[in-house]
Structure formats: C-alpha cells, structure tokens
C-alpha cells in the first residue's frame, strides 16, 4: 500500500480525535499534506503527530473510544498503534500556548499522558483541509516552520527535520515570512541563536532521498537568515 494511501487512511480512521476542538495535525506529515493532491512524497517517519492543546485534553479523551482501529501502545501510552498494517501509528503530543518554547513537561494522565513540547507553543491553528469528506486542521505555516528551526535534534532525524522546514519555506508566501519574523522576535536569545545555527546547517546540507534538494534553495535560506539579522535581532 502506498504511503500516501496509508496516510489518508490513517487520517480517516483518526477523524474522531482529529475533529476535537483545537487539535492539529503537526510534525513532518504537514508538508506532505500541503503538497498538491496530498501527494505525500517526503520520506518521514511512519506516524501521524497529533497536537493536543492541554486545555482541550479532557475533551479529546472523551473521543478516544472512537479510535476503533487503534489501541494504546503497552510501552508508550501517548502512542496508539494501528490494528492494521495499512495504517500509521498515532503519536499524541501536548501543546501549551503559555509554555516557554525552551521547556518540556509531561502532562500526567491515566488514559493519555502527553509530552508537552515547548516548541509547539509556536503553533497556532491554520487552514482546515478537506480530506475525503472530513476536515483536518493544520497549523499555520510560519509557526510550524519556526518550530522545526528552533528545535535542536542531531543526526539523520535532525537533518530531515531541517529539510521539512525547507519544504515549508518553499511554500511560504511573503505574509508567512512576516509572521515567522514576528514569532522569531518573541524568542529568547538562546532560541534565536538556535534558529540561526539551524539555518546555517540547512544552507549547507546535501540532498537526501525523498526530501527536497536544499541546494537550489540556498539563497532563499540565506535570505531568511539575513532578514532575521536585519531586524536587529541577531543573537
């Protein structure tokens, strides 16, 4: 079964929770869903990240019985594993808009504990897209892109995350870049430096299978870095 079909089937099967108020599809699948026709050509991990606002956690839990095609992982209850190999794992993560992007904590719960990533505080609800009759809410592009740039990861996963940020940058309109700049200005100096450092790494990356080739986009990446510097926000 093609990855795109698994992704769309997963979204359909997860609709009960995806339609909970404030819930967003986050993570690396977002650029896959933003491709024309949801083409899903990027090679990313085989899960669907579901961002749950901490103040919407209780409401989302009430919808968990609707997830008939998944079951909680015995090892990791924030992950729900599919009963069918034709579906992807669901990975629930917490979003707390009041959180410092440099922090993380566990929202403890008997049924669905969540790791609340500070970087996800940069996300806000964006467009709804219609998928096979249902609506899925994605985050705004600027916040998701900045979250990818501010979150430090190492190795192959880190580089693929930066290429996901690039995939989002290639879709960014001028208004998205202005919004990203505004969010950047609100970051603490350490986080700004992390954004700078990751942009320099992204500018020098080589191509990876199944990801956008960063080399033709080097000038755009540099232009974003220079734009952030020009705001007097150089770390």
């Amino acid at each position, binding site marked *: 079964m093609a990855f795109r079909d698994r992704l769309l089937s997963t979204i359909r099967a997860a609709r009960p929770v995806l339609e909970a108020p404030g819930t967003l599809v986050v993570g690396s699948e977002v650029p896959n869903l933003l491709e024309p026709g949801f083409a899903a050509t990027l090679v990313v991990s085989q899960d669907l990240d579901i961002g749950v606002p901490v103040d919407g956690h209780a409401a989302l839990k009430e919808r968990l019985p609707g997830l008939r095609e998944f079951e909680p992982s015995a090892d990791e209850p924030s992950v729900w594993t599919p009963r069918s190999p034709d579906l992807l794992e669901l990975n629930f993560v917490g979003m707390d808009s009041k959180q410092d992007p440099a922090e993380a904590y566990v929202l403890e719960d008997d049924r669905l*504990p969540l790791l609340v990533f500070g970087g996800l505080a940069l996300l806000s609800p964006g467009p709804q897209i219609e998928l096979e009759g249902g609506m899925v809410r994605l985050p705004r592009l600027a916040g998701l892109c900045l979250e990818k740039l501010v979150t430090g990861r190492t190795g192959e996963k880190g580089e693929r995350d930066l290429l996901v940020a690039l995939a989002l940058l290639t879709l960014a309109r001028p208004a998205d870049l202005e919004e990203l700049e505004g969010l950047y200005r609100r970051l603490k100096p*350490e986080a700004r430096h992390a954004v700078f450092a990751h942009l*320099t790494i992204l500018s*020098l990356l080589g191509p990876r299978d199944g990801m956008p080739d960063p080399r033709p986009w080097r000038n755009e990446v540099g232009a974003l870095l220079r734009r952030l510097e020009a705001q007097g926000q150089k770390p």
Partner: protein
Amino acid sequence: MTTPSLDRQVRELRSQLLVRSWEYRQRHHAHGVWFRFRRVLVDAKEAYAIPRPEAEALIANGSHAEPVGSELQPPKLIIFVPAERVRAIPTARSLEVRLSADLLQAECLALVPFEGVSR
C-alpha cells in the same frame, strides 16, 4: 500515569536544551567558530580552492580576509570575490559549498557571494 519513556524523553529534551545553552554561551568563543564559519558560507553562492599566492594577490588588491579563517587551525584565508575575478584564476578549483573534506582541507578559499549580498 506517566511512563519511563515519557520521562526519558523529557530528560533528553532538557539535555538538548542544556547543550543549546552551552552553544549559545560559546558563540563568541572557540567552539562558536563552526557557527561563524557556516555563517560566512551561507552568503557564498560558489566556493573555490585557490593557491596562496593568488589569495595574497587578491588581498593586496583590496579584498579582505574573513576573520573566521584565522580562528581555525590550521588557519585559512577566506576571501569574498566577484565571480569574474575568481574565474580569471586558472588554477581555481570549484568546490561544493558545504562542510566537505575538500572544502575543509583548502588553505585558501575564494567565495563568490550571492547577488545582492555585500560582504
């Protein structure tokens, strides 16, 4: 209920943040040279390894060496030059603009800036 795996992930994230703080404090010190070196390369559309006499001639003619070159060991002469100037150097060897072994081994680097970038 929490799980060991969630607690472990929080600890890993906090470790990453400690590293980030350390990198931030290092930004003007020796370890920060890699950030400063990458920052210079971001502005380069093309990179060439050139012989030292050519690099010294470019400096004698008004080009300036990027300070980060002297912060590396062994030091490098890193110079931004217009494309036409570097193409006039027959021994210039084109390099991919990335942290490859070739680029890191070059003693003298001539970098062509992207259009509109002033260095």
